[in-house]
């Protein structure tokens, strides 16, 4: 069999181009981040400038400074850029009418996504970092958006306070600590320094159980910013035995359809060597298997 012979071949040579008085001036100016158009005999302004306009007339040689922004007249999205394209990510080729001109320039628009491209959209010129007097001294155009990023960055030192510290130290030892005003007798978990109903200091610390009643809950099925967990997951209010206020935590170890108001639940702790001053020592609450608490026993906590 006679296989057809094949070998790679590259035809490559750098020619010299005389740019002439009009295009030459335009390209030289790009080195200095100066954008100019040229006037035609009939008073129009062209950018990129031409030596001869489409009527066959020589342009005037009179140059006009231009603002480096314009309007997209037409465009085509390049989803898969090829070698030699200005970007290795998707971009648009566009016809851009520079402000104050009467023609349009072909150039790239770095829009990120096709849905940001629109005929009539406003774009600004982005200069290349390195310039060498070619049209690529204009790196591309980019959309002009009527908004800016507004970063906010604030730094704090957070002191959880005396009573919350007692709670966190308790968690570090695998215990739930509450605070009680001896007169009213209500136990707040975490302790808060004063009973908001009486105004009295919660002067006594008491330990409460890591077992309690799931009073109410939700199944979260929506993703949102800053979320650490992957939906769906259950988030519930748990009144621990001996406490008078609920804490909120994840409910797990049970199919979502079996989670009920009044279900008895207990804390599922991390291994002891991982305990810190954090409620995250508890992975979640899970059913104890005891009978459900009657509604009347927890309805005052809803």
């Amino acid at each position, binding site marked *: 069999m006679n296989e057809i012979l094949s070998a790679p071949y590259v035809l490559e040579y750098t020619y010299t181009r005389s740019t002439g008085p009009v295009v030459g001036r335009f390209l030289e100016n790009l080195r200095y981040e100066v954008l100019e158009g040229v006037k035609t005999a009939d008073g129009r302004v062209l950018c990129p400038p031409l030596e001869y306009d489409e009527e066959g007339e020589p342009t005037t040689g009179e140059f006009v400074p231009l603002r480096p922004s314009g309007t997209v007249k037409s465009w085509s999205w390049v989803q898969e850029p090829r070698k030699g394209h200005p970007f290795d990510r998707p971009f648009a080729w566009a016809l851009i009418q520079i402000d104050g001109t009467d023609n349009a320039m072909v150039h790239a628009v770095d829009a990120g996504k096709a849905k940001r491209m629109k005929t009539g959209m406003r774009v600004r010129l982005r200069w290349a970092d390195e310039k060498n007097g070619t049209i690529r001294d204009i790196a591309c155009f980019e959309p002009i958006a009527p908004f800016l990023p507004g970063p906010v960055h604030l730094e704090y030192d957070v002191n959880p306070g005396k009573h919350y510290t007692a709670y966190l130290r308790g968690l570090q030892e695998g215990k739930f600590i509450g605070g009680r005003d001896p007169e009213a007798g209500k136990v707040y978990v975490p302790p808060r320094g004063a*009973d908001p109903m009486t105004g009295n200091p919660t002067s006594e610390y008491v330990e409460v159980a890591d077992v309690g009643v799931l009073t109410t809950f*939700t199944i979260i099925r929506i993703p949102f910013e800053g979320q650490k967990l992957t939906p769906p997951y259950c988030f519930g209010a748990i009144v621990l035995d001996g406490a008078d206020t609920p804490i909120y935590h994840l409910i797990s170890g049970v199919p979502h359809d079996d989670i009920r108001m009044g279900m008895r639940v207990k804390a599922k702790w991390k291994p002891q060597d991982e305990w810190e001053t954090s409620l995250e020592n508890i992975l979640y609450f899970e059913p104890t298997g005891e009978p459900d608490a009657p509604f009347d026993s927890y309805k005052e906590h809803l």
Partner: protein
Amino acid sequence: MAEHCAVIGIGQTKHRESRRDLSMPGLVRDAALRALQDADMTWKDIDSIVIGTAPDMFEGVMMPELWLSDALGAAGKPIFRVHTAGSVGGSTAVVAAHLVQGGVHEKVLTLAFEKQSEANAMWALSPAIPFQPQLVAGAGGYFAPLIRSYIRRSDAHPDTGCMVAVKDRQNGLLNPNAHLHLDLTLEQVKASPMLWDPIRFSETCPSSDGAVAMVLVSDKHAGRVKNPAWVKGTSVRTERTFFAGRDQVNPAAGKLCAKDVYGEAGITNPTKEIDCAEVYVPFSWFEPMWLENLGFADEGEGWKMTMEGKTALDGEMPWNMSGGVMCTNPIGASGMLRFAEAARQVRGTAEQHQVDGAKVAVGHAYGGGSQFFAMWVVSSER
């Protein structure tokens, strides 16, 4: 009160998911100008400005009242901000009314706004503060367990929330300023995805950009318009988020707020003496919950009013004629939009969503963990 107070100008922007066509100063100015035009006034006529918006982290702008003062013609005039979480639009209007009623100022411009599109309220609500457990739930996740408790306590029909969602969206179709214009059937709402069980997607409010403004004046200026809305009662009440034995479903502060505002307005039977109400319902189930909290229904009975269609636009007690928070939710402005809609109703200027012959209306707002409440009663008669 020493002076009577009347609403003579009301203006609002078109509300949208994003008003990036307007800067924040441009947004508030749009609403303020509409209110001034409605009152047949210019900036020079205004004595003071009271502005409200949601907590700073919702937009990341500290002290917007100072930044926005030029846009609101406030140079050389008193301007200050009210700050009560989601109820802020309501309490801002209450403060403005008090300035007039107390004789401090005769002509007050009050305004509330929010550009949710410039920030992320879900992020702002779930910061990971050291030592504190992160609220892993977002806004809906906080309220969903309360709704579950309500359903259990009242043995409510499970479709109640869906009924409200359909009804409020139908009303919103009549309101050209509303953000959402959704023609939904009960079946469509029931089939929409669960986000925070038992809250479905279609049972939640949107995130909106928008602003609303009102001009409040004393007696002697009320004659500028032929149909002022008279402020007959105002009230603001607050309680803590957590305390032992707190009723989170039917909070005491909300009941006290309603009792107080009815007392001031001389109302003894809300269902008979009030013609319609515009109430802060960001999740549809809050309609039956607030029907009970505000004394329109006995405890455990609110859902029946909804299911019987009594709260529809043509029902016995229309609620949320404008489409409410379920159709439009620029958080900081949401409360004042409720107050403004109540005033529009008694002025007879609610256009397509006008309740025929409405003379007395209630505006309501709440915020935080169902802990800040603001209400007013307005009437066509002084």
